[in-house]
C-alpha cells in the first residue's frame, strides 16, 4: 500500500515493477493512468481547448484521504498490492495526472478495486483543477457523472 502526492512526473513501468517485485501471488495487475486531454469533453459537449491544467490540493489532507480510500479497497477486495500516485501543479495536454495500480491473485478483483479507487479519489480526495484556456482561466466544476460513479460503491 503506497500513496504519493507529488509535483514531478512518475514512471509507470518502474511503479509497476516495484508493485510486483518479490510478490509471486499477483496474477493480474489492473492499472489506470489519467492524462490531461487537450479538449475538455464532457457529456458530449466540447469545451475550450486546454493549454494547461493546474492542480491544487490540500497537503496533508490529500495523503490522508488517499490512504483511507486505499485501505477501504483492501477491506473490500483480496488485494496483494496497491499504489496511488497523484500529481499537483501545472500540467500540459498529454501529461500524466494520476496512476492507480492494483495487484491481486484474480483479475476481477483487480479491475473492480482499480475502478473503485479511481471513482472514489475523484470525489473524496481534495484536488481542484484550474484550466488555462485561450479564453482565460476556468475552475473545473465537479462532474455529476463522477458522483454517480462513486455512488455505485456505497455500501447499502
Amino acid at each position: 500500500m503506497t500513496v504519493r502526492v507529488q509535483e514531478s512526473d512518475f514512471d509507470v513501468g518502474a511503479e509497476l515493477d516495484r508493485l510486483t517485485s518479490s510478490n509471486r501471488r499477483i496474477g493480474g495487475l489492473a492499472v489506470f493512468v489519467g492524462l490531461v486531454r487537450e479538449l475538455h469533453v464532457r457529456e458530449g459537449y466540447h469545451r475550450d481547448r486546454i493549454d494547461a491544467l493546474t492542480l491544487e490540493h490540500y497537503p496533508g489532507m490529500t495523503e490522508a484521504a488517499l490512504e483511507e480510500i486505499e485501505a477501504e479497497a483492501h477491506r473490500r477486495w483480496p488485494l496483494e498490492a496497491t499504489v496511488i500516485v497523484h500529481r499537483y501543479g501545472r500540467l500540459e495536454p498529454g501529461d500524466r495526472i494520476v496512476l492507480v495500480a492494483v495487484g491481486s491473485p484474480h483479475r476481477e478483483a483487480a479491475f473492480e478495486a482499480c475502478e473503485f479507487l479511481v471513482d472514489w479519489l475523484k470525489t473524496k480526495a481534495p484536488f481542484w483543477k484550474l484550466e488555462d484556456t485561450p479564453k482565460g482561466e476556468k475552475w473545473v466544476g465537479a462532474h455529476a457523472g463522477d458522483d454517480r460513479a462513486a455512488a455505485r460503491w456505497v455500501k447499502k
Partner: protein
Amino acid sequence: MKVRYFAWMKRTVGLAEEEVTLPADVTTVGELVAWLRQRSGGHAEALAEGAAFGAAVDKRTVPFDAKLAGAQEVAFFPPFTGG
C-alpha cells in the same frame, strides 16, 4: 484557530488562510460560516448561502453541524475535481 480556503474560494476571499479567534457562540462549522461571512465582501461571496462548498476540520471532511471544539484548522473548498 486557522481557517483555510482552496481553489476559487481562496481567490474570492482573497486569502489562502487566516487566524481567527472565535466568539463563544460560534461552536459549529455552520456557525463559523455565518460568522466569517461578515468579515468582508469576498468572504460573504465565497461562503454565500446556497454556494456549493464543503468543509474539513483538522483535514477530515465534516458536515456543517460538526462541532469546532478542539479544532486547530478548518478548511473550506469547492467540490473535489481530482483524478
